[in-house]
């Protein structure tokens, strides 16, 4: 690859670094937000896959362990119903964690920025 002079590199580093810093809020609440939002949705799907919630709901009326007798079916339905609730709680918990992460993302930038500025002003003046 072509060798670039040190001054050009430094100039770019400053220019790009500064531009990134200035445009940070814009990126944070546009592309960045979209990415984190999609990631949160993916996490929800992942947690649903992890607990197999869809499969359990789909098989709500299918007897467990091949027990096709009436009692077997009744017990299966009961167990599946409970399991769907338990697994549902698992999915909701994990999803909630993902959404907490999302909310943190939304507030962390202004929070840290304000924290830095307010503290600095208060400490210096």
């Amino acid at each position, binding site marked *: *690859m*072509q*060798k*670039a*002079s040190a001054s*050009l*590199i*430094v*100039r*770019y*580093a400053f220019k*790009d*670094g500064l531009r*990134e*810093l200035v445009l*940070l809020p814009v*990126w*944070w609440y546009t*592309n*960045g937000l979209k*990415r984190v939002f999609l990631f949160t949705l993916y996490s929800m799907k992942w947690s649903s*896959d*992890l607990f*197999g919630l869809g*499969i*359990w709901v*789909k*098989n709500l009326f*299918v*007897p*467990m*362990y*091949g027990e096709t007798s009436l009692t077997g079916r009744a017990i299966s339905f009961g167990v599946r119903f409970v399991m769907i609730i338990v697994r549902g709680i698992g999915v909701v918990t994990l999803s909630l964690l993902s959404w907490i992460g999302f909310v943190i993302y939304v507030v*962390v*930038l202004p*929070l*840290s*920025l304000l*924290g*830095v500025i*307010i*503290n*600095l002003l*208060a*400490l210096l003046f």
Partner: protein
Amino acid sequence: MALLGLTIKEQTYAWLEPLDEYSVTQHAAKNKSIQIVGGFLFSVLIIGLITSLALFLFTDPTDILNPRVLFETSWRVWFLYLTLLAGCVLFAHQQQLGERRATMPVLEQGEEIPAVTSLTGEAQNLADVFSDEARAALERGFKLATTFGHASVSPLHLFIGALESNDASIVFGRLGLTFEKIKDPVARYLQGRQLGKPTVLSEETERVLLTAFLESVKQGLQEVPSYELFVASFDVEEFLQELFLDSGVSAQQFHNMIEWIRINDRMRIRYQAFKKAAAFKPTGPMNRSMTSVATPILDQFSEDLTTAGVYGQLPILVGREREIEEVFRVIEGGRQSAVLVGSEGVGKQTILAGIAQLMVEERVPKILEDKRLVRLSVPHLISGVDPSMAQERMMRLFYEVSKSRNIILAVTDLEQMTGLSSGNDATADLAATFVDFLSRGGTFAIATATPRAYVGSIERSVLGRVFQKVDINEPDETSAIHMLQSKIGEIEYNQKVVFSYEAVEKAVQLSDRYMHEEYLPKKAITIAREAALMVSKLRGEDALVLGEDVAQIVTEKTGVKATSVASEEKDTLLNLEERMHGRVIGQDEAVKAVASALRRARAELSSQDRPLATFLFLGPTGVGKTELAKTVAQTYFGNEDAMIRLDMSEYQSQDSIHRLIGVPGSNQGGLLTEAVRKQPFAIVLLDELEKAHPEILNIFLQVFDDGRLTDAAGRTIDFKNTIIVSTSNAGTQYIQDAVGRGEDLDSVKTHLIEEELKGTYRPEFLNRFDGVIVFKPLTQDEVFQIAGLMIGQVAKRLEPKGIFFRAEPDAVKELSVKGYDPKFGARPLRRVVQEEVDNAIANALLAGKVKRRDTIVLKASGTIEIEKGKEL
């Protein structure tokens, strides 16, 4: 300014990035600055973190867990916020780096492949989907062009620019090339390029960039890698193709090598996706929906392929998409079971493994989702019990399967289910039970069988009703090379060696050519494994496995000379006539014709689809026809025993055809086919061919034409590595008369073929021979020389006894006169030597007149004299 473009899904792509000194320098500076900014942010993050932690530790460490501390005003909190902010900036920086300005388009299956056209209107910049390495390759190519002062960046510049990438060094290494090898011609070629300033991107190179992009889209890649530039520039640069050919690498070989890199790339991507998906697949008998039951009996007699897949124990399947699709269609569409029918080694088990892996990833039709593929072991099931108990076991096992509802059965060698018997009275057919279970909708099965087993035991049995056939053909050479390439990584890892491309190619080509009892790709994989083991033992770790190593293994396995001609062998081949004349006296034309044919065969100039050579030796008895055949066996095959000799006078009736190729229905080969099957690298001598039945000659018509023959057991016997010599006495009287009249051999031959042999052989039969060679009757002088050879043989026989023997020239002359008969050639001479020489020596030996170190001298008039040797 870009001239060319490529439109995929209504989006046009073109190379819009300026390529000049300024832009290239800027791009390099930008890349460096990105690294610097990232490094700086990371440093701030770490320093901030350490400082705030230290400040907390020095004041009140418990405050770290107190959220209220965030609202206090202090340096430690300021540093905490600063760290947080630096983290945000670094996160955004890294994310933006990963954000491509464009994503690669996806070509749907069956979608028309677009063509490169002139650019009109708006376009997406190709540079945005190029990998860093690919962009660097282009910039290096540009740098090279500017250094030489060339007017444009040509594909050759691009190719050289791509040479520094990792993939290029793998390609060069495996192809056995070095940059040193091509450096000088490339430099010379570059000097002839048009000069000019400023250096711009040529239209041809633009086309190369677009082709590389299109190829990457076809491969389903996320970006354009440097090796696609490498191959796209190679394809348009004829100079490069010529240069590689000079180094022994054809365009096909180069492409196969690139395909190897693509295969590895695809396997890596697939493995990552597979690992992700496999995390959700249960490994026990229980499925995710818990509808299944424990299957203790099934577990005893089976192996769970999906579980093996989750644990990464199954081989990765390359190709065979059509066959898998067909299996799915059979199961999904017809709700039937499928039987994969293919010869041993074509990859039926690997296809089963491939299906199991797709089931792990749940990339299967709905009917197969959340199910497991379980391979039933029929030998286990029937071992140690009589057939009726085996049947009972099977019923209990099927009960578990139908109750569990999540099991797809895999049965290898389906024919094992039929004709089970034990003792005299207990017989049972598991097939009927199995079919009954499947047809009642118990589950589906995917079975395997060889074509012979399918025709013999399945097609017309009850199994044929529920199993739909899916043909698994032997892959062609290129596909087999790709399949083997996918296995090489594992072999290299196990044996700590590195495979050259040539070794991979030879493993496929030579096994295909010489090992007809087995099938691709298995036989090539076996050869590659053995070659790797041999090389690692002989040359140690990290040694390169070469084509010659593979050829050596093939030679050892088959007895066929697969290695290239070594230097000493070259001398032998070039002096074949001389060596042959050591045993065959006279017959110059015959010796010359045979020697030339052998040289052609060894240099692989003769057709690969026929025997190495086919000759018809015509001439009177005792003139050296059989001797020449033996000489060929000795000089070409290295051993006089490498000869399959058939006396065709024993095949005078039409029925005798069965002795040659086997009795139909016997499942056994015949004398000829079995002999060639066991010894495929040999001379086949058909003595007195004219005496064979005309129908038998028809069989040889096919052998001469295609180099193969099918025996009664249905096996195809390969004659391509044999030399077929037929001898015949037909037309002897004419030869003797014509040679006696002094006619030249060519006209004798022409007359023989056109007139004399008409009644014996059909013209199309004679035409099939590579050479019809006429042996002329021996002259008195030639018989004298033969007598000398025979005397030499006598001396050789006495050597082990420590006794020497020589004959005076007059004695030899006398023998040759006595033994000369123009009708019978040298035959009477042998009798004369036996009677006059061997008998006299035997008498002397028995009388105890000769001791060790003595010399027996044969004198004229047949007397022998003994010269006493030195006393010890």
